[in-house]
Each structure stands twice: as C-alpha cells, then as structure tokens.
C-alpha cells in the first residue's frame, strides 16, 4: 500500500525552526512504522535521524509521537494507521535533531530516586535472600519499564512543569519501594512527598495510555500517594 508520511524535521546546524518533510512510500500493511522510517532514511533521505536499536519494543530507543501520541515506532504496524502518518519527536525535551530528543533530564529524574536496591545486610555468600512469590508479584508491573520516556513526555504536567520528576522516575522508585528486600523506601518516599513528587500527578492517565510495555503507570503513582497518606 502507498502511505504518506509527514515527519517533523529539525537540524540545528541549518534550521531555525522545525519543518515537516513529506515522503511517499510503498509498504506492506504489516510493516512496522520503524521499517518505514528506515526505508525513507536508506532510500530517500539519508539525513533523516532517529534513534533505534532492538526493533521489537524492548530497548526503548524509538519512542516518538505517531499521529499525535507517544508510541514505539517498532511496535506499531502501519495497517493500524492507514495511509497518512504523522511522526514528531516526543514533547517536553529539547530536540537534538529530527526525532531525537535530549534524554539527560529524563535520566536525571530517574537517578534522583535511588533506583537501586538499598540493603547492605549481607545475606551470606552462596544463598539468595528469600522472597515469597506474593511479595515478588507486588512490584512486578513496574519492573517492566524500559525507560523509553513515552510516559513522561506524554504527561501534560511535565510539558510545562520542569520540577516534576515525571511518571517514569516514579515507576522506577515504585519498583524498589514495594520490593520486600529493599530498605530505602523512606528516603524515596520523602522525595516523592515533595513538591516535585507524586502530588504533581493529576491522574490524567496519559502515561498509562502511552506506555508501550502496558505498565499501569497511574496505578503505581496512586499507590505511592496512598502509601504516603496512610504510612502503609
């Protein structure tokens, strides 16, 4: 099928403002949007720039706005979009070039919340810390995060409020707060209780809608709020 692509272009070396490039392409309906981007880059315009790596939705490189919503280009099939597709970079972060945005702030927020197991007790060599399957299940959903940035850059609060840590950072804090082996919950909760923490969330659900891994992001944030409120 023939598909028209409108892709937002911006090269800081020569452009003062972003513009839209138009490309027409013959594709299979079952092709991924990423396949089309590659085809345009390889056959039509070598300067088109985007991030990509694993091409099947586990590395998180190619999050972008496809027809106005944050998606991974490698997880979207063209048949679900029809013959006109608009592709733009994620919102809220500086565009480095074309569809590539600066992720430093994103990872910065992530690092603020101690995204690692805090537990200095030595369980002894040659054995594991025990954890029941039920305790393991509690934080299973948030271990799926691949840090693509789709949730954080879908959130209307992060677009305008640069203090907000954003959904992805909270998801990764959640993954440790509810891990029965972790002992750093209080410190993380203290940060999450601050002005840039969970209380900025207005339960808009854009993050959940955008998550390519199907993580119930809003649920995780709400759970943290309830924990802060009840101390449980």
């Amino acid at each position, binding site marked *: 099928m023939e598909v028209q692509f409108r892709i937002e272009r911006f090269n800081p070396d020569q452009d003062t403002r972003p513009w839209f490039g138009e490309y027409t392409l013959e594709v299979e309906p079952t092709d991924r949007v990423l396949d089309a981007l590659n085809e345009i880059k390889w056959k039509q315009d070598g300067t088109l720039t985007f991030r990509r790596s694993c091409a099947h939705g586990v590395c998180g490189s190619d999050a972008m706005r496809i027809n106005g919503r944050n998606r991974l280009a490698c997880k979207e099939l063209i048949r679900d979009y029809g013959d006109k597709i608009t592709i733009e970079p994620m919102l809220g972060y500086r565009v480095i070039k074309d569809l590539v945005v600066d992720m430093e702030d994103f990872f910065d*927020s992530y*690092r603020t919340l101690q995204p690692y197991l805090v537990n200095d007790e030595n369980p002894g060599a040659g054995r594991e810390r025990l954890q029941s399957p039920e305790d393991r299940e509690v934080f299973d959903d948030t271990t799926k995060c691949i840090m693509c940035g789709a949730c954080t850059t879908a959130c209307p609060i992060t677009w305008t409020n640069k203090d907000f840590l954003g959904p992805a950072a909270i998801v990764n804090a959640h993954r440790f707060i509810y891990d029965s082996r972790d002992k750093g919950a209080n410190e993380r909760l203290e940060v999450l*209780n601050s002005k840039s923490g969970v*209380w900025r969330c207005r339960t808009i659900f854009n993050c959940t809608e955008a998550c390519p891994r199907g993580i119930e992001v809003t649920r995780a944030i709400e759970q943290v709020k309830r924990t802060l409120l009840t101390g449980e």
Partner: protein
Amino acid sequence: MSSNRVGREKPVGSNFELYSWYFFRISGIMLVFLAVIHVMVMHVFNTAFDIDYDFVAARWESPFWRMFDWLLLIMALTHGLNGARIAVDDYVQSAGWRVVGYSAILIALLIFGVMGTLAIVTFEPQ
C-alpha cells in the same frame, strides 16, 4: 553525551503538598454537597428572577443558612485558590513570577475571604 550527575538536587519535603492534596479532596467532597445544594436552591427550586434583596434577607434570617453560606464561601475560596496555586506551579516556571503568582493568590484569599465573611456575618436586614 557524558553524565556523571547522580540525579537532581533532592527536594526537601514537608508534608505541605500531602495536606494540600488531601484538603483538595476533603473540601471537594464537601463542596459537592454545598455547591450543588446552593445551585439547586438558587436556580432549580427558585429562579434567578425570584432572587432579590428580600430573598437574601429572608434566607439569612436563619443562622443555618448563614453558616451554610459561610462554609461554602470558605471552602470554595480555599479549594479554588489552591487550584490556582497548582496552576501557577504548573505554568509559571520563573521563580520571580511564581512569587508574584503566589502573592496574588494570598491577597485574593485575604480580600475575598474578608469581604465574604463581612457580608455574611454583619448583614442586618433593613
């Protein structure tokens, strides 16, 4: 390219945002009753054309309605201005303009709170 930052400066927390959030919900639930009853009384059981000075005077004969209206006033004002405060946080990024925004909200709270309270408390039918 390179990053050796270990995250942002950690914001120091107080429970202010928590209380604010909680108050938002509590006042919200109260307002659902207060405001909806108010609207019903003014616009469903009566109409805008029934309302005049005498109507207000008759209603404020009863201490219950005075209390009711005062509670509505305070809840609506604090709930609304808290919302405005959050809007300032969300849309005003420069520290200076934020102070301006917060100040405007505080002043509005004072002025309108005092005006409304005075009106309700000191009213004496003529």
